[in-house]
């Protein structure tokens, strides 16, 4: 082999290695950011009994990130561990980012259940988990408590959402809209989620049948990937249609973008968003733009149907969370609340069942949850109850809040004091 040949091979190898290294570094960085499997809150200082292994699958990266669920869950488990765990059993918590993809959600569920042998899933909040892992949790006797985002989160035997979700939340939104805000024309801008769209349509038809006159007020229903698209076209369209109220189903950063875009195009309307839009940073971000009347005379404010209590609630359990979050530097928003309340409900059930069941096993945890007495979390219109049923519509209300003078305040006119609740059950998907 000549010197030239050796140099050529060496040069080629160097280049290949460089490309591989660059790709590896970049992909490693991505993996770190999305933490496909990371342990957190694994404080084991308390108690000498066997730990209770708990996992969580959440969409942390992507257009609809729910990442704050993780530190919210961690904060509660850390608090419980510092108090000695559950009946002396410390809680070990691991979590993973499914990136909103079915493949990752399936992989993580199998990893945690079959390899790590977790006793339960707590705080799962994902766009893919319920649909992808339907049957898997039930088949393996794994209980899940988390944030429901799609119909199957609310209609599986072992899956219990602590939030009202986009369905009860949506009906609450409509009830409050038409009974209190009384707009002339409503434009709905919904999330482009294929698993939810048929159920949304079903619910709307059901609501319109129950409330004559409402159908005529729905001027437009659009489905948009608002996380990836500029909101300006949608609000410009709403203005062209003469809508004086815009309903959104989106997360806080997108809601803020819609309101700002409305100001830019001159849309004079009230905004009302599902609980996913609740975040303590929103009033400061919007500033005076969030106050009623900022967009014009038809603007009654920026409302959110907070599915869990507003963080300025005086309820001691809410304040415990707020203070713990402050100490742990956890953002206080809807998603971190879901993590906290999921963990709190889980712990409440296990404390009740610790003397009767082996709460370190999936079977014992499931039994404890199925036989729990309803737990008043202080965060919701209803007491939390897992129960033995095949579906779990526990939380059927939302607390309507609006921005006033730079903070969220509880809105007036709700049908159950500080909450607007749905009386009775919604029709099942496809019914």
């Amino acid at each position, binding site marked *: 082999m000549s010197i030239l040949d050796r140099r050529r091979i060496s040069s080629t190898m160097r280049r290949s290695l460089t*490309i591989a290294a660059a790709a590896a*570094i970049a992909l490693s960085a991505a993996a770190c950011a999305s933490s496909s499997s990371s342990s957190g809150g694994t404080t084991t200082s308390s108690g000498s009994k066997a730990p209770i292994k708990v996992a969580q699958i959440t969409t942390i990266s992507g257009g609809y990130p729910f990442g704050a669920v993780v530190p919210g869950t961690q904060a509660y488990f850390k608090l419980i561990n510092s108090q000695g765990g559950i009946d002396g059993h410390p809680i070990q918590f691991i979590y993973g980012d499914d990136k909103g993809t079915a493949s990752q959600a399936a992989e993580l569920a199998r990893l945690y259940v079959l390899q790590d042998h977790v006793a339960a899933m707590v705080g799962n909040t994902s766009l893919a988990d319920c649909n992808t892992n339907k049957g898997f949790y039930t088949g393996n006797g794994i209980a899940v408590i988390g944030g429901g985002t799609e119909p199957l989160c609310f209609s599986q035997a072992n899956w219990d959402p602590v939030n009202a979700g986009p369905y009860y939340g949506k009906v609450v939104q409509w009830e409050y809209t038409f009974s209190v805000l009384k707009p002339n024309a409503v434009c709905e801008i919904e999330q482009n989620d294929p698993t939810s769209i048929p159920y949304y349509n079903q619910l709307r038809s059901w609501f319109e049948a129950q409330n004559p006159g409402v159908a005529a007020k729905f001027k437009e229903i659009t489905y948009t*990937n608002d996380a990836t698209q500029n909101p300006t*076209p949608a609000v410009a369209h709403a*203005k062209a249609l003469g809508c004086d109220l815009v309903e959104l189903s989106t997360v806080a950063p*997108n809601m803020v973008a819609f309101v*700002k875009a409305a100001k830019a*195009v001159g849309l004079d309307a009230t905004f009302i968003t599902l609980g996913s839009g609740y*975040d303590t940073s929103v009033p400061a971000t919007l500033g005076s733009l969030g106050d009623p009347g900022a967009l014009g005379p038809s603007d009654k404010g920026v409302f959110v149907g907070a599915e869990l209590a507003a963080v300025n609630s005086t309820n001691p359990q809410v304040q415990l969370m707020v203070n713990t979050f402050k100490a742990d530097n956890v953002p206080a928003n809807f998603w971190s609340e879901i993590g906290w309340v999921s963990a709190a409900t889980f712990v409440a059930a296990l404390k009740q069942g610790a003397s009767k069941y082996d709460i370190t096993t999936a079977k014992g945890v499931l039994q404890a949850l199925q036989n729990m007495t309803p737990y008043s979390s202080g965060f919701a219109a209803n007491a939390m109850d897992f129960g033995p049923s095949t579906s779990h519509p526990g939380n059927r209300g939302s607390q309507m809040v609006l921005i006033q003078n730079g903070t969220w305040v509880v809105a007036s006119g709700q049908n159950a004091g500080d909450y607007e609740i749905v009386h009775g059950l919604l029709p099942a998907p496809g019914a």
Partner: protein
Amino acid sequence: MVAEMLAGLVSGGVYAALAVCIVLMYQMLGVVNLALGAMGALAACMSLLCVRWFGLAPGPATVVAVICGALIGVVLGLLMVRYFLEASVEVRTTVTIAITVGIIAVGDRILNGATYNFPNLFSGPSVEIFGTGVPIGSLIEVAAAVLLAVGVQVFLRRTHLGAQLRAMSERPITAGLLGIRVRTLTVAVWAFASAIATIAVMVVLPTSTTSFPPLAYLVIFALGAALLGLMRNMIVAAVGGVLIGMLQSIVQPSGIGRYTDAVPFVVIVLVMVWWRRSDVWSEAR
């Protein structure tokens, strides 16, 4: 319809500016820079940090962001010059994909799902056109993108430095042997494109989501526009960017609105088919 079309200027302006930079980099450096949106978004995040950490006013924060954008371009330009100067277009482009993934990871850490008030370059009132408010920043960006395209093309054709850049793009090694500072010029183009991308992203940020990946993926829509100019004509690319933005805006509220993201891909496929039509038809004959 008119209202929706005008609303499309917001994103159209960004696509146009990014498309011009994509064509510029492809023509001069032989790289399809898929990291351009991520680079601009990351630099734009610096403006947010300047406001939050140092209490800078929007103007200075914007200047800092643009400087950061240029520096990001310098760093990546040096990386490309050092390791990939003689690599093929495919390899260089693949490297930009890796860079994109890396930057998104960092950006996701900065914008961690909360809401933010980004400095607004043009916070003044919107311009009322046909009953619809159009943000003044969008109009300026569209005009600036077209001017940028014209200016760069004139610069490349009429100036000595432009001639050097063209020589560098055609024969980098020969250009280097003739004394043209290939490495310096390459880094300069990276810095320039990155700074422009930063400005483009900053114009759209005040009325867009503050989730990082969608900002990084703006480049996909711009790529559709760049292909409209057949990766050669910057003016057509700029106009194409505006048209794609307007087309998306019209489609969004319609019955097929949920497929709006597919618009650039449809454009890309149509352009590719048109571009290669003679080859395909000749082969068929």
